[in-house]
Structures are given as C-alpha cells and as structure tokens.
C-alpha cells in the first residue's frame, strides 16, 4: 500500500516568540502546510537534545526548534544555550552521516507571523526533497 508522502515536522516552539508567531501566522490567515506539528515549550532551551533524537528516531521527517531571536529571549539567555545544544546534535548527526538537514533551528519572533509561515513552507519543501525519514521504516530503532 502506497500513500502520498505527508511530511511530519515535529516543531518545538517557544511560548513567547515562535509559538506566538505561529499564532500570528494563523491570525493573519497565512497559509502553510499541515506538516508543521507544533509543541509548545516555555523556551527553546527547554528542548533537550535527546528530544531531537527521539523525534528523529520516531520517524519525524523534520524536527524544528523555534526560538526568540538571539538577544530577545524571554528568559534572557535560553536561546543561546539552545543554539549550542543544537550545534552539538547537528555535529553528532554529521559525524555519523545522519541527515542533519532533518533538524532545524529558526529564530521567529512573536511578531513574525509571516516568517513563521515562510519557514514552515520552505522547510517543508526541503523535507519533501529529502523524502520520508527512513527511520519510519526501520524496525530496529
């Protein structure tokens, strides 16, 4: 049975900026694909690196972290920590030859509804190019 590939992008959005930006995108009726599955977290720094790995291994075609712009973190420095942690996970993926393109971090402020929609559209497109995450098929994970 072959179904049309629907990307699923697990999206960790910080409550103050990116989640609000995503709400704003909706309020402004900006359209983007249903691939974006939002999960609200208090801050991008709440996203434990193992969340990314778990979501990836579970079969998410992409994992997105949305945080406040550097300098704008509602919690002052959370996004700087998030950025370092993200860099580490990305480096681990790269070292192992895993598709680190399936991981993305983006700064989206509370007033950037259009940016949220743009990131959602562009990232979905990028993931469409990568195709379905092979982890979905693997029974060994």
């Amino acid at each position, binding site marked *: 049975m*072959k179904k049309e590939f629907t990307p699923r992008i697990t999206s960790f959005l910080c409550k103050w900026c990116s989640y609000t930006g995503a709400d704003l995108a*909706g309020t402004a009726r900006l359209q983007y*694909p249903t691939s974006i599955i939002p999960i609200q977290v208090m801050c991008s720094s709440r996203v434990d690196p193992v969340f990314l790995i778990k979501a990836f291994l579970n079969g998410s075609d992409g994992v997105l972290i949305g945080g406040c712009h550097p300098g704008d973190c509602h919690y002052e420095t959370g996004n700087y*920590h998030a950025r370092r942690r993200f860099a580490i996970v990305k480096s681990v993926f790269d070292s192992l030859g895993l598709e680190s393109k399936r991981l993305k971090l983006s700064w989206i402020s509370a007033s950037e509804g259009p940016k949220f929609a743009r990131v959602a559209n562009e990232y979905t497109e990028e993931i469409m190019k990568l195709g379905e995450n092979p982890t979905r098929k693997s029974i060994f994970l």
Partner: protein
Amino acid sequence: MKLPMKDNKKNSVLVLGAGIAGIQASLDLAEMGVEVHLVEETPTIGGRMPQLDKTFPTNDCSMCILAPKMSECVRHPLITLHIMSGLKNISGTPGNFICSVIERAKYVDPVKCVACGLCEEKCPVKIEDEFDVGLRKTKAISRYFLQSIPSEYTINKNHCLYLTKGVCKLCEKVCPTGAINYDDQDKEIELNVGAVILATGIDPFDPIGFGQFGYHRYSNVVTSLEFERMLSASGPFGGHVEKASDGKPPKRLAFIQCVGSRDEGINRNYCSSACCMFAIKQSIIAKEHSKELEATIFYMDIRAFGKDFDKYYDKAENQYGVQFKRSKISEIKELSDGSLDLKYTYENGDIQHETFDMVILSIGLQPRLGSRELSKNLDIRLNRFGFCRTDTFHPLKTTREGVFVCGAMNSPKDIPESVISASGAVANAVKYLELERYDPSTGSEEIKEKDVTGERPRVGVFVCHCGINIAGVVDVKNVAEFAKGLENVEHSEDVMYACSTDCLETIKQRIEEHDLNRVVVAACTPRTHEPLFRDTISEAGLNPYLFEMANIRDQCSWAHMNEPEMATEKSKDLVEMGVGKARGLVPLARLPIDIDPEALVIGGGLSGMTAALAIADAGHDVYLIEREDVLGGNMRDIFFNFNDSDPQEFLAETIEKVENHDRIRVLMNSIIEEIAGFVGNFRTVLKNSAGEREELTHGAVIVATGGNEHETAEYLYGESSRIVTQKEFERMLHEGKFPPGKLKEVVMVQCVGSREEGRMYCSRICCSKAVKNALELRKRKARVNIYFAYRDVRTYGFAEEYYSELRDRGALFFRYTLENKPLVSKIRPDDPDSRIRVTVFDPVLEKDVVIDADLLVLATAIDAPEENLKLAKMLKVPLNSDGLFLEAHVKLRPVDFATDGIFVCGLAHGPKDMSESLAQAKAAGSRALTFLKKKSILAEGTIAEVRTDRCTGCGYCEEVCAYTAIEVDPEEGVAVVNDALCKGCGACVASCRCGALDLRGFTNGQLFSVFDSLELEASEGI
C-alpha cells in the same frame, strides 16, 4: 481565596457601563480588594468590542482577546454584576455615595435559565437584532449575542406578545427549567459606595438623513459597523460579505471617511480618532477575504497617529494595494444594477467619477443616546459636543467630586486608550477608599480539590467549533469522534464555543458525570484561553494543571484553510498529542510569593510624578528616581494649552505635591546600576552623582523614562537663528523673544523626522502642538502670516476644533509628500540671522510657492531615549523596533509588561500628549497597586524541580540559569530550586545530563509522550 471585608462603602465602587473600559476598571479594583458593582444597561458585558471582528494594528480577533477578560470579570468573587440596569442618581458625599440603581425586569430567572435556547426557537416574534445592527433578526426572548456573558436569556418587554398583548406564553411552555417569570418587576436598589466610575461609552454616528451618501436609500451603502458585522465570522453572514442588492460578493469597495466627524455643520467639529484605522483595518481584512477585491479609501487626512499605526497604513497601501484618495465626495448615485457611482473632487479641483459595488461609510463616534439625561441625573457636566466634560490636567475627573470617567465617554478613543483611562480612573477612585493590604493565599479554598493521585487517567476531550473559525475548515465532529478511541479518553464531544459560559458549565458537568481527572480542549491558542479553562476545571474540583489545550484554530484551521482534510488529520494529531500529554499530567501547587509594598518609579517627568502620586496616595511608599537635578521632564518646555489653563502652574503644583508627600522619596541625580528580583521582590542599586550607591527593595517598577526631541539635521536646522523646533518656538512665544526684525512670515514644517525611513511612526502630538503654537502666535501678533506644510493634519479628538480655527484665521496649508519635501535655503548663506527661503509645492494650485520666511518652525519627531535599551535589558522587558518599550498586549494590556510587576507609562511607551500621559501614568500606578495591595501572590506551578536522589551536584543547571533560581547546595551537594525566582523556562532541565531535573507541567515524560503520540507511519508497509 480570602477576601477583604465586604459591604463597606469605604471599600466599594460602582462602575457604570461594562464595555472594555468598565470591565478593566472593575478588574483592577477587584484585584486591589475593592468590592465592585458593575452596572450595565444591556443584558451582557463586553460593550462594543464583541461587535468588532478584528482590532488594528495587529488584526487580533476582538472577541478572542476580550473573552478571557469577560470571563474573568464575571467570575471574580468581588465583582457583582447588575445587568439590564441603570444608575438613577447619586446622593451623599464623595467617599460615601448612595447610588440608586434600577434593575430592569428580565422576565427570565437567571438562576434557573440554562441558556438552552428552546425559548428563542419557539418565540414567534422576530425583531431586529441590536447586536448585529439590524442585519439579522432575533426574537423577543433571546440571548444578546452568542458569546454574551452572562449567558442567560432575557425577554424584550416591548415586543413580547404576552407582555404587550397578553397572549402567547410559548416560551414558558417550552422552558425545561421553568425559568420564565412574566411577573418580574423592575427593582430599585441602593448601593453605598465610596466612588463612582462612569464608562458608558459612545454610540456610532447615525447617517440616516445624511442625504448625500444615500444611506438607507441605496441598499449597498452601509456603515462601517454594519460592514464589521459582515466581515465577522460570527456575524450574520458568517464572514462572507455580500451585497444587499443581489447577494453577490462585492468586487469594489469604497470607504468614505469622516462621516459624522470633522463636520461643524452638524456640531461634530471633532475627529473621532479611530475611524481612519478602522477603515484601513476593514480594507485589509476584506482583501484577505478575497484577493480580487479592490478597496479605495476616500479621505481628508489619514490619522494613523497611534503606536505602530503608520506601519499598518503603509502595509495596507503597499502590501495589500488599498487605494487612498484624498478627495471630497460630492455625490453618490445608485445605478440600475445596484452599484454606486461616486463623484469626487481632488484637492486640485479635478472632478472624477468611479463606480463601486459597495460603499462603506466610516461613521464617527458620538456621545451615547441619553447621556444628557444621565448627566442631569448624576449632576455632571458635558462639553459642547455632549461628551462628559473633563480638563487637560484632570482627564478622568468629571465635574462632580468622587465621580470619574473613563473610556470614550469623555472623548472618542480606541481600545487601548479606553483601557488606559479605565485603569487611570481606578487610581482616582481609590483615593476615596480605605484599602487594607490583603493576602489572597490564606484562608479556606471554597472548592475542595479532588485527589486524583494514583487514579487511572480519565481524559475528557472537548473539540471547539469556534463558530466557523474551526468548523469551517476542520471536521470537528470527526475529530471529537476520533478522540473517543484514544487510550484513556473517557469522554469526547464537540462544542460550539468552548469558551462560552454555558460550555464552561458543560465541561464542569462532564467532569462530574464521567469522573474525569484530565481535560483536553481542542480550540484556539493556550496563550489566551488556557487560564480560563484551568479556572473552569478547578471550579469543578480538579487541579488546574490537569488541563491541556490542542491549538486547532490559530495553528491549524486558520493556517490550512484550503486543505480541510489535511487540517482535520492534523487536528487529530494535535488532539492525540494533547491527550498524550494530559495522560501524564499531575496536580501542581502554586506557592505564595510575598509582595513588598513599595514601588520604584523611574523618571521624574510628568508621567513618573503622576504614577508616584497615584501609588503614594493609596498608602504605599514610592521611590522616584530622576537622572537629572530637576523634576518635570519634557513638561518644563510646555507653556500653553488649548484652553487657557497653565501647564507650568500645574507642573509646579505637581512637583510640590511630590516633594512634600510623606510617602514619596525623590532621588535626584540618580541612575540605576542594577535591578534584580521579581514581582514583589525587586532590589535596585542606585548610584548618585557623588558616586554613592544605595540599595532599594520594592514590589513593583514603573518605567516612565520619557522621550527626547529628535535632533534633526534637515531643513538647515542649526544654521540659522531663524530655524527653530516647535519646542524652541514655544519657549520663544512664552518669553516673547523672537528673532530680530519684523516677524511677518512664519513657516511651519511638520513631520520632521517622523513617518519616514528610520522613524516609521507618527509622533502624534506635533500637529496639535503646531496648531496650538500657531494660534498662540496669532494671539500675540495678529498680522503674521502662517504657512503650514504638512503630510496629514493629525489633530485628532477635540484638537480638530483648533485646527479649524487656525484655518479660519487664514493660515495657509500646503500638503507635501515624502518625494516632494519643502526646500529650504538661506537668503544670505553666510548670515546666521538670514531669512529663510522655503519652497513648497502647492497641490491645490499645482505649482511651487516660494515664501521668504522670518521664522521656520520644525515639528521634530519624538525619539525613544537610547538608554531605554540598557534599562530594558536590566528589567528583561522588550523594546519595539522604534526603541519604545513594548507593552504586554497593544490592545488590552497597554501599561503592563509581560513580566509581572513592571509597568510603563508616558513617552517611554510612545508619543502622547499631557492628558494621555497623565491618564497612562495613573493607569500604571493603578496596575502596580493590583499587586502592591496584596501581601502575597501565588507563583506559577510550572517551575523546575530536583530529584535529589539522582542529582550529582555537577552544576550545569546553576551555570545555565539566567535567574540564579537554581544552585547547588554546598552542604548537600545537590541542586536546589528557588521557587519564587524560577521562571519555568526549562533551560536547566535540558542541561541536566542525569535526568535529575524536570519542569513541572512540561516534564520530559510528558513531552516524550506528546511526540510519541504523533502518527508516523511509513508510507510503504514494512
């Protein structure tokens, strides 16, 4: 919650009118521990806001942002609602008023009514729906509107067949609860209160009889309020705008501005202040509804004077392609197909014709019907337009002591201005009360919380239609059905408006019926509605944290409008994830945080002093910090006012009050080195000019750092004694020291630095200030010629009258554009006192006009001080792109920051005049008092916790915490969280290698089960 003493006139206030201003005033008072009687004429609270579809300039859904406040208001234990009621008179003395309130008969017992709607269905009498401005019918027994609060039905006695003709009684027959009571009588009650706040709002201008626009004669001519209801998804046409003539969607819209505003002929020589933005908003929303639609706005001046308004105007014009035509409409004719031919005249005299499908009259705001009678009954005076009379320096005081006014009752206002004035009026009212600090964290809980520990999760799911906001895209019933099949889901149903009072009741009932111990609501965003639902489940005995929301509107139905099937699938995912999280939720406790009663006010200008006085007068110590060696700020340069009151006299009085107030400590020449802490527990280190440091502790902070006059380099400023700013000119007028020689020709150039690259905002006050100074100049030198170069004249509100006066007195006005700014040169380039040659294009004559000016006055912009950045960082609060402090919400939280306990007022928030600064300063004081009046508040439950048995004391958490809220105890060698300092960001939790930390409410386990719930099947079977 333990409440302060009840039934004491010294501790109660009557608020008349339950629009947004009345609601805000009531909530502020109630949070300070004041007993509030909220008296409302209609059967619901909410006022005008529920009629609006969206609000400018953020396009927030009006009802979405208002609904939580309405619910909070109706649920507050200190607020008593008197709906369908009026205030007959006030007797007694300030501080001890007796108010006679008439409660009109409702003919439905609100206790028995369950708002099932059977009565309305059966009622045979159709009448015009007031809420939908006659665009649809309602019944003689009805609910005011779908989301009205309270939700109970009422009978319109003027139309009820039984009450008018003695026949029918159908409603009584069908009512399942026996709530109908035809014998209900009007009641008069007496309330003993300390002060009264009036917030009766405005009426929209009625253009009937305003012949030239054909309203009521031509079916496709509508008012802006009617159009708003048409645009509203919950409106009579479900958000599908259609022409009355043929039911088809219009393709070409014309908005006609200033209908019932700026019109001396009908005694409305004032600007209604909100209509320009209202029309821009409607044109944007209409174009969002249909891309092919064309919209043209016919206007005199676009008055986008508020914070971020010009950016919105720019967006409409350049992004949405809305046409703006500066012209006068001379005639509208209906054509045979129902379309309308507009004849209009450009400023150069060109006459044009254009055909439109629909014409929207941007109607102005006028005093409420009956306000004259009310003013007589209450013994307050009105101004010449019929608005409640106030003065510049007491913008919230009526002419009767102890009676205050807020909202649009004293002048046309938009929503944030109304909210500001409401909080401001509260600061005035509390002076007449005797308030004790109280402790909301002590005392017995009214509802005993069920202990659900150890119980198997029993999840209830409620999927909201949100009218058609969700159900128009997502198959809501299908989603609700799907949820039934999920593990641990005990109950699932779809509901029309999850946030409506009756649905909240339903949720409570279902918790009871199905013994639910977790609740998931799939609706809008948790940002706005989570508190409401949490309160609701806690009323049903569940810990409020046993709740989860699935955002299937803002981040699903609205974002995937063209993919209904996919949106439905995504909604299912989101619901499943919500249930996944809910399964693992555990009850959380909120811990009390002590509140220091003192306040810190930063900035000793008019705003800072006013805020300080508001708090000090309420019995709290205030530290007032001023960087300079003198109080007064920008007001020291203001010498005139439109009426003859003297700003300097008022300033001197204010300074005297501040300096002599035994609760205010003024700290001059002081700068802030450090601010640490959190609501109720701030610690600030000051340094004075002698280098001495002092540490202050306080419970709240008010930012009143003011603004600066922009230092322009344009128009040869600085190169001649004859080129001055308006501020310098005002001082010149005051001191009578003009440049040498005759003063015959004076040119004023507006928008110097404003509304262009680098400062994309209107500085708001410059037009009025220039008009004021020009009139002042005329008073002194009657023969002087005044030339006024402007882009739009933005003399909003009652300043319009003075603009007319200036025109009448012969000042010449030249509109210029950014591409064609006035040219300035010195006639004798080397002479510092040289006369100035100004060349300005006259669009009326369509040629350049050259003026050799004796004085050129520049209306320079208002800049945000650069130091804002440093202070913002210290306070951890945001600035907007213009460097102005960014409030928590532009509409409904205009003086708050997102961070509790910190408030903003005056120019620090945005350009505004003295009255507005005074109102906002009082509002900031009032908002601070909502915290300071409490001995403690409750901390959030969402904070980090340590599992000490797994903690190695490695210190990762301590390093990453920005709030020093977690530290490794050197004795025990394990991390310890300071509950009061923890903001719940989770940075430490994600840093913890050992799994020894978790964030309550967002635990690792809960988050794992959220994304574990996501369906991720391989497209090909394996």
